[in-house]
Structures are given as structure tokens and as C-alpha cells.
């Protein structure tokens, strides 16, 4: 990955339209739209899944049928017609690929447009990338290095076939099938996603990274990710997303489950830049995601997210602090512009003794958008000596946007210690003029102010991701003041 300079940013800023708005002309193999048990059986058959998996999906579907779409979030959108969605689209079946040369050149072109140079990543970035294009993993790299350490990093479909015991043991354990409407839907129809297992005592030597991409009109994307860090292991996982611009709304309902066994640590970082819709609020991705991690004794899970895209974001990466002394962290930057809605935050469930959690949320609203932080800190009677620190800061740009904070606290143990801080500020004309007077133009001034505001969270991202995130923040807010 070549270095991204301020000059590159300048060029990007000049071209404020969604920059990844292109389509790749790859042959698709699609199912008809709509959802019933036959479709689910067909998805499962297509993926050559064992019977237990097919049954698991069908059971999920039956659960989903009894559920209704939640409407408590502070978001407005046209509810999708779930029978108008195509639940499976995959690049046409191809033989197993041994090298990049065998990958569809069109697909490689897509990667090039996205700035993902796989060869260079192999050499420079020390990143193993499992690229998911519309549901089917096409190419995984660095398998050899990982294999030596006993690390499994593959598509979830492959894991279902190759590591059924691990999948059976953990799939749906942290996010049960009936957890919520979208999680149930995902459990029924998930197309693909990533699977990662770090063996006992192993420190994963590189950042594991997956680039997701929605790539076909009217195709819902139902990713399923399962990360298991065995006792005393460590892994840092990166998830970065882009999607081409569309007129139709696209539904995305992913489920991510993390399991950190005793003394293990998982860092999970996301940069989300899906199509947010146009300036009038038309189009854009609906992002209804369930992300949750389970911490056993002395384990730690850190969620870091930079959410700039999607028309609607509904997402609460959470931690169940089950084991004594376990630690949960949530660092978030959510940017909304034009007509975007974001309702995002976290849940920290303290069950074990001396469990600790930290929540740092930075919301930036511009245009006519609405940005909500919604967080729950729950301390169970068993969680003696639990501690939480929450900080929610909102930055407003202009007079037509909204920032909202919904902190929920449930304490069932008197020894718990909680702190909550919240601020709301506005980028002022005085700040801009001050920067201008020092020779910094308005665009750069906003970038500077926003980066300063977001710094505590940006600092939590791995280096190369932090640069990308910074660039995204700036592009997302271009033209929103003055």
C-alpha cells in the first residue's frame, strides 16, 4: 500500500463524489428473489454444507419468521421488503485458485480501483487479506505463514467443512440465533464471511484483514464472522469496507462473534465506508449489524470502529465480560452527513468480578443527518468491583443536523464504579477564521479540527488503517461547512 499524502487528499477532496462508485462486470450466478425454506436449502446445497448446518439455518429461519423488525432506534428509513431481496449471489463457481494469475482479471481491476494491491500488501504491509466479493471468498493470502503457527484464517464456508467441531461449538454462542431480527435473518441466509482461530498461547504475527465489498445490484449481504482466540492468544483483526454507489437501497445484516478464552486478547478494528446515499438522501446501504464478543477470565476485547458510510447504521459492538478481571473496550467515531442516520454504541455486560470497561464515542454530524450514541452498561450482582468509564462527545457542523446520546445504566451491585462524561460542541466560525488567518484554508481547517476531535479513537487503530480512516473522515465531511 503506497503512502497516502496530503496532496492525495487534496485531490480526493476536489472530487467529493463517492469515489468507489463503480461496478465490476463479473458473471454472476443468482438465485431468484425472496425467502423460504427452499431458498435456504438451496443456499446450503450450493455451498455444499453438511446437514447440521442446513438444519441450523432452517431453525434460524423459523425463529426469524416469528420476529418483527425492531423500531426503537433513532433512525428513519423505508423498511426493506424482505421478499424482494436476492439472498444469494456469488461469482460463478470456479476451480480452486492456486495463484493470483487465476483470479478473474475484472476482479483484480476492482481491487486495483479500491487501492488494494495484493502483491504489494504481501510484501509491504504484512497483512493477510481474505477478500470477500459478494459473499464468496476468492483469495486468501499468507496462509502458509499462518499455518505454521497453527492459525486458521479462512472463509466461514471452508471452516464449516474443514473445522466443523470449532464452528459447531462456537457459532451462535455469543449471538444466539434469536438474539434479534437481523441476527436471525443472518443466521438463516449468511452467504460467507471469515473464520479465524488462534491456538493456545499464540500471538498472531500479523494483522488479519478482510475487505468486504457489496457488488451486485439488489443483493443483500449477510456476512458471518467468527473469531476464536484460544487461551493466552492474541489477534488483531481489521475489517474495511467499500461498496459501489447505487440508487437502490442495499441491505446489509452482518453478524460478528468474538470469543476470547482465558487470558486471550482480540482487537477488532473496522473502517466502514459504504455508499451513504446521495445528497438528497436517495440510495445508500442499510447497515444492520450485530457484533458481540465474549470474554472469559482475564481476557480482553477491544472494538474500534470508524463509521462514515451507509444511509442507516444500526450497530452496537458489545462485550460480555463473563470471566473475572476481563476487559472490554469500545472506541468509536461515527460520521453522518447529508441525510444519513447512525444509531450506534455498545453494550458492556459485567458478569465477572473486577471486570472493567471503557467506552469512548465520538459522533460527528453534518448536513441534515442524525447521529445517536446508544450505550448500555450493565453490572450483574456477580460483578463485584466492576468499573466503567464512558465518554461521549458530539461535534456538530451546521444548524440542521442532530446529535443524540442515549446512555443506559443498569447496576445490580453496589460496589460498581461508573463514570460518564459527555460533551457537545460545534465547529465554530471563530475556529475556522483562526485557522484561515494562519494560512489554513477552510477545508483543511475542518480536517484539522475533526482529526483533533477524533484523535483518541484514531490512535487506537493500527497505523495503516488510521491513515485510511483519517482520509475517510475528511472526505465524508467535505463541503459541510461554509
Amino acid at each position: 500500500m503506497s503512502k497516502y499524502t496530503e496532496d492525495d487528499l487534496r485531490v480526493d477532496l476536489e472530487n467529493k463524489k463517492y469515489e468507489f462508485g463503480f461496478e465490476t462486470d463479473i458473471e454472476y450466478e443468482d438465485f431468484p428473489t425472496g425467502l423460504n425454506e427452499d431458498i435456504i436449502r438451496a443456499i446450503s446445497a450450493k455451498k455444499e454444507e453438511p446437514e447440521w448446518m442446513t438444519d441450523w439455518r432452517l431453525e434460524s429461519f423459523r425463529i426469524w419468521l416469528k420476529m418483527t423488525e425492531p423500531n426503537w432506534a433513532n433512525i428513519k428509513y423505508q423498511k426493506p421488503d424482505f421478499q424482494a431481496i436476492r439472498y444469494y449471489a456469488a461469482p460463478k463457481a470456479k476451480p480452486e485458485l492456486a495463484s493470483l494469475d487465476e483470479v478473474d482479471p475484472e476482479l483484480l481491476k476492482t481491487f486495483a480501483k479500491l487501492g488494494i494491491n495484493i502483491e504489494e500488501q504481501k510484501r509491504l504491509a504484512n497483512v493477510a487479506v481474505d477478500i470477500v466479493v459478494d459473499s464468496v471468498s476468492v483469495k486468501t493470502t499468507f496462509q502458509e505463514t499462518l499455518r505454521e503457527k497453527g492459525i486458521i484464517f479462512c472463509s466461514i464456508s471452508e471452516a464449516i467443512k474443514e473445522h466443523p467441531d470449532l464452528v459447531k461449538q462456537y457459532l451462535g454462542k455469543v449471538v444466539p440465533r434469536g438474539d434479534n431480527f437481523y441476527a436471525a435473518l443472518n443466521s438463516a441466509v449468511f452467504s460467507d464471511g471469515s473464520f479465524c482461530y488462534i491456538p493456545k498461547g499464540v500471538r498472531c504475527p500479523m494483522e488479519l484483514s478482510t475487505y468486504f465489498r457489496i457488488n451486485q445490484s439488489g443483493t443483500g449481504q449477510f456476512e458471518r464472522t467468527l473469531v476464536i482466540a484460544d487461551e493466552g492468544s492474541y489477534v488483531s483483526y481489521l475489517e474495511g469496507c467499500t461498496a459501489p454507489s447505487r440508487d437502490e437501497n442495499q441491505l446489509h445484516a452482518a453478524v460478528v462473534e468474538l470469543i476470547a478464552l482465558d487470558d486471550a486478547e482480540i482487537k477488532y478494528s473496522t473502517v466502514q465506508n459504504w455508499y451513504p446515499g446521495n445528497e438528497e438522501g436517495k440510495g445508500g446501504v442499510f447497515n444492520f449489524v450485530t457484533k458481540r464478543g465474549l470474554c472469559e477470565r482475564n481476557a480482553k476485547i477491544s472494538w474500534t470502529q470508524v463509521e462514515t458510510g451507509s444511509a442507516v447504521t444500526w450497530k452496537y459492538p458489545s462485550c460480555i465480560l463473563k470471566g473475572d478481571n476481563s476487559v472490554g473496550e469500545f472506541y468509536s467515531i461515527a460520521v453522518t452527513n447529508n441525510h444519513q442516520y447512525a444509531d450506534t454504541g455498545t453494550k458492556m455486560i459485567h458478569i465477572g468480578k473486577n471486570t472493567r470497561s471503557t467506552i469512548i464515542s465520538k459522533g460527528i454530524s453534518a448536513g441534515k443527518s442524525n447521529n445517536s450514541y446508544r450505550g448500555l452498561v450493565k453490572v450483574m450482582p456477580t460483578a463485584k468491583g466492576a468499573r466503567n468509564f464512558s465518554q461521549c462527545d458530539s461535534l456538530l457542523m451546521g444548524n440542521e443536523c442532530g446529535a443524540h446520546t442515549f446512555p443506559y445504566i443498569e447496576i445490580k451491585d453496589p460496589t460498581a464504579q461508573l463514570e460518564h462524561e459527555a460533551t457537545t460542541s460545534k465547529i465554530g466560525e471563530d475556529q475556522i477564521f483562526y485557522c484561515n488567518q494562519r494560512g489554513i484554508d477552510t477545508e483543511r481547517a475542518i480536517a484539522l479540527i475533526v482529526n483533533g476531535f477524533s484523535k483518541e479513537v484514531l490512535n487506537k487503530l493500527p497505523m495503516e488503517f488510521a491513515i485510511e480512516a483519517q482520509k475517510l473522515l475528511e472526505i465524508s465531511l467535505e463541503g459541510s461547512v461554509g
Partner: protein
Amino acid sequence: MLQIKNLHAKIEDGAEILKGINLEIKPGEVHAIMGPNGAGKSTLSSVIAGKEDYEVTEGEILFEGEEIGEDAPEERAHKGIFLSFQYPVEIPGVTVTNFIKAALNETRKANGLEEMGAKEMLGLIRENSEKLGIRKDFLSRSLNEGFSGGEKKRNEIFQMMMLNPKLAILDETDSGLDIDALRIVADGVNKFRSEGNAVLLITHYQRLLNYIQPDFVHVLADGKIIKTGDKSLALELEEKGYDWLLN
């Protein structure tokens, strides 16, 4: 260097505040503008710097012979106009160092220069911060956040020295300063002064002028310069106040 001719300005959709200012500042000179509250002193500095809240209705501002009335504030900054703010704003999360780095490099780029290398930049920062007695940890604090009045003003003068402008306008730089801080700030300004640049001091009190010797003192009242003299005028004002001039 700076020529202001018959300048009239008003607040957008508001009252006229400057009512025909004439002022000429040549390289190497220090001018002081004094006057009672509400005379338009701060408005004048804002208008020269290009703040959008004001509308110039008549007259012109020439900088090095060029009309700058239509220039954006950053363009005026790039040409070498610096304003030390009476109330410098806070920018949380942006360190003093990062801010000055951005300011300096943006100005260099606008003038067709390469960005300054990290080593050279650090050298310059060290040199100027030492002149002002600024400690290292100060440089990594968020800009103006939690700064005392003295720290804010010292930071303004530090930025001035880093950017090395042609014209420095110091708006009430002495307000809120104790005597030690005032001496340090004045010392910085005196070190900055050269044959090639000019300083415009805007102040309520004669006190600052004990430390920075002006070549000219102007009295601004009700949007007009009503009297100009040398530094003895400042002493006279200190003694008599403004009333004898106003009537």
C-alpha cells in the same frame, strides 16, 4: 507596506463601525492604535485580516501596493499578514506543534515553496520557543485548551515568530497579562522587529508601549483616526484620558 484609504466597514446587516480610516504603515515601522472601548479598534484588525462578518462599504486596503479587499483570509495570511488574536480559540486534540506545522506548510505551499522538512521544522520550533521561554511540554498540549491568558498570548507570539509575517497586527496582546508575561511577549515582538517588517499594535493602555516603542501613535474614536502623534501622545493619553480629544 499597508495603505488604508478612506475605509468604511459595517457589521453584516448592521451598523457602520469604521467611518473613513486612513493609515499608512511602511516597512520597519511600529504603529500603535489606541482608543476608548467601542471605537472600532478590533473591527479594524478583523477587517484587515479579512473576517467575513464585516462588509467593506467604501475605501480600499492595499498591501504592498495590491488591493486585498477581495482576498480570502488565508490568502491575506499567505501574503504575510498576521493577526494575533485578542481571544485565541481552542482547538481540542490539535497540538501546538501540529497546528503551527500545518500553518507554516500551507503558507509555504501557497507561496510555491516545498514543505519544510521535519528536522528544519523542529530546529525552528526550538529556536523560537526558547526565545519566548516556552517549555517543551507546552508544545504537545492541545492548542489553547486550558491555557492561561499569558500562555495564550505567548502562543500567539510564538506562531508569529514561526510564520515570520511582513505585517503583524497585535490585537490587545497585552490584555490579561501579568507584568512578567508582558515583558516576555514584548521581548518577543522586539526580537521579531526588523527593517523589512512592520507591527500594528492595538491596545487600550499605554503600558505595552513602555516595552515596545512605537514610531506612531493613532487615536481611534467612533470609527475614525482623530489624532496621530509620536510615542509622547500615548503618555499624554495615559495622563488625560480620551475625553479632551473627543470634545
